């Protein structure tokens, strides 16, 4: 029995190590090749750099206009997610507590919309907000944020809805009897109770919005507004096969989110897990 337990343990470890290596190997390649020259990258993609060369990072920061691009991505993601959390929580709360026919229908439409492929919305989107209303020219960042709130709301309302249903009504009734208005009850009693769910929803939305390419590439036309994925695309096109610039650029694009993950991994994994159960 003990011997069998030992074999299965070894096998488990062996398989996990194989998985670990194959899942992290691309990151290893990115890191070691970021410090090499083109010739060294082409000759020995797998080995450590012969001499560590940090100069490409400076180049990349300058050529990618990194600080501006990073700021754009940050502002768009942060504002979109903040509004998604607030608005979705409000909507989900009201849908649960006032289950009128209108609210039930609204909820059903939201949930059903999750299977709409972005491709079947994208052409009318560009037509209406580009050609007809000209918002793409006049307020690209604002439009993008509103679109993210709209796209993110279905899933977020769905998860909040599930959680709010499990909150006992008595707390809210007590606060209403004590003289709070409906809005005060929501902001002072309910919203703080939603914090764990909110962090789950925030994580899932940040991951998607931060990395999104197609939508911002359609809406943002001015280089001053570019987000990291679009900038990466342009950069890749300009410096094709110039790996000594491309590899550090890729590393710098993924680094911010990897650093956040390093510090918050416990909460992020937990958040994704909670999102999965509901």
């Amino acid at each position: 029995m003990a011997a069998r337990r030992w074999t299965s343990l070894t096998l488990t470890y062996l398989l996990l190590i194989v998985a670990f290596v194959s899942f992290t190997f691309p990151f290893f390649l990115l890191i070691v090749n970021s410090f090499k020259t083109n010739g060294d990258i082409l000759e020995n993609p797998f080995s450590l750099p012969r001499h560590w060369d940090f100069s490409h990072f400076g180049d990349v920061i300058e050529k990618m206009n990194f600080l501006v691009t990073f700021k754009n991505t940050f502002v768009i993601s942060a504002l979109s997610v903040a509004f998604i959390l607030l608005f979705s929580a409000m909507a989900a709360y009201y849908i649960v507590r006032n289950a009128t026919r209108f609210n039930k229908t609204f909820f059903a439409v939201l949930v059903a919309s999750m299977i709409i492929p972005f491709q079947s919305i994208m052409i009318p989107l560009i037509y209406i907000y580009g050609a007809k209303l000209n918002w793409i020219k006049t307020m690209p960042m604002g439009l993008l944020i509103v679109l993210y709130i709209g796209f993110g709301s279905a899933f977020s309302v769905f998860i909040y809805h599930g959680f709010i249903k499990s909150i006992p009504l008595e707390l809210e009734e007590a606060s209403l009897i004590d003289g709070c208005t409906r809005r005060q009850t929501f902001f002072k009693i309910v919203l703080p109770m939603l914090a764990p769910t909110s962090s789950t929803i925030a994580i899932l939305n940040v991951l998607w919005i931060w990395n999104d390419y197609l939508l911002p590439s359609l809406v943002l036309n001015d280089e001053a507004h570019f987000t990291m994925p679009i900038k990466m695309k342009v950069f890749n096109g300009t410096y094709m096969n110039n790996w000594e610039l491309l590899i550090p650029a890729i590393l710098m694009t993924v680094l911010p989110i990897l650093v956040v993950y390093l510090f918050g991994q416990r909460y992020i994994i937990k958040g994704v897990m909670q999102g999965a159960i509901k």
Partner: protein
Amino acid sequence: MIAEKSKVKRLGNQLFFTGPTLIAFAIAVLIPFAYGYYLTLMHMTSPVSPLEFSGIDNYKTAFQDKDLWASLWLTVKYVGATIVLVNAIGFILAYLVTSGLRSQNFFRTALFTPNLIGGLVLGYIWQFIFVQSLPMIGEKFGIEALRLGWLGDEHQAFWALVIVTIWQSAGYMMIIFIAGLISVPKDIIEASTIDGANAFQRLTRMTLPLMVPSFVVTIFLTLKNAFMVYDINFSLTGGGPFNSTQMVSMHVVQKAFLETNYGVGQAEAIVLFVIVAVVTGLQVYFSKKMEVEA
């Protein structure tokens, strides 16, 4: 249900609480989605030129578009391959990291990491691997399969896409499966052990049937993601070589924006929507039927 007495107050709260979401959702999804049907009936050569009514011409052209069907068939194959492989590998990983090892949290964290990277950048990373790194290994060790860059051959390029998809999403599915595995009641597993079931029997007779709700979610997600895949397709293979790896989403984008055939592109996008709606609908309906109570 808490209802206000006065109608004015109720309407005020309704607008206050659901208004912002309703407006943003209408702007992003409802209005464009509805308007999209109208656009399929129009001849539209550029986003700014005036629309001309064309009836069902766009649908006719779409149905005669050989490239659309080729890209759809390719997408179906890709959907099939990723559903099987992503879920199988995701489940195996979840099974391994819930077996009670002391380092299981470390492995969970590491295996989830690829999911943090966006599809576009992911494609570029793997381009480096397939174009620069693997041929090096092939050269050094004389492995013929690796020597030629995978992205230059249509069959290998397809599998390259599948591999990258597995690499990206197996960790996410693993997390969902972990949530499912943890919630399998321990007493049932113990009872079956006492009754003499071995590890394999416990897995196939007890655990897997109780995991159906997790599989409903993961299969739905892989199905949906695979049908709509764009970023990886675009940045890894760019549809090449010779359009052989162009999936349906990329085909629609191409049709509309590069060939500036917006009406036909939109009609093809609607065809895509109908297919996704039918397939995911059937999937959820049938797999819900398979769920068992613990």
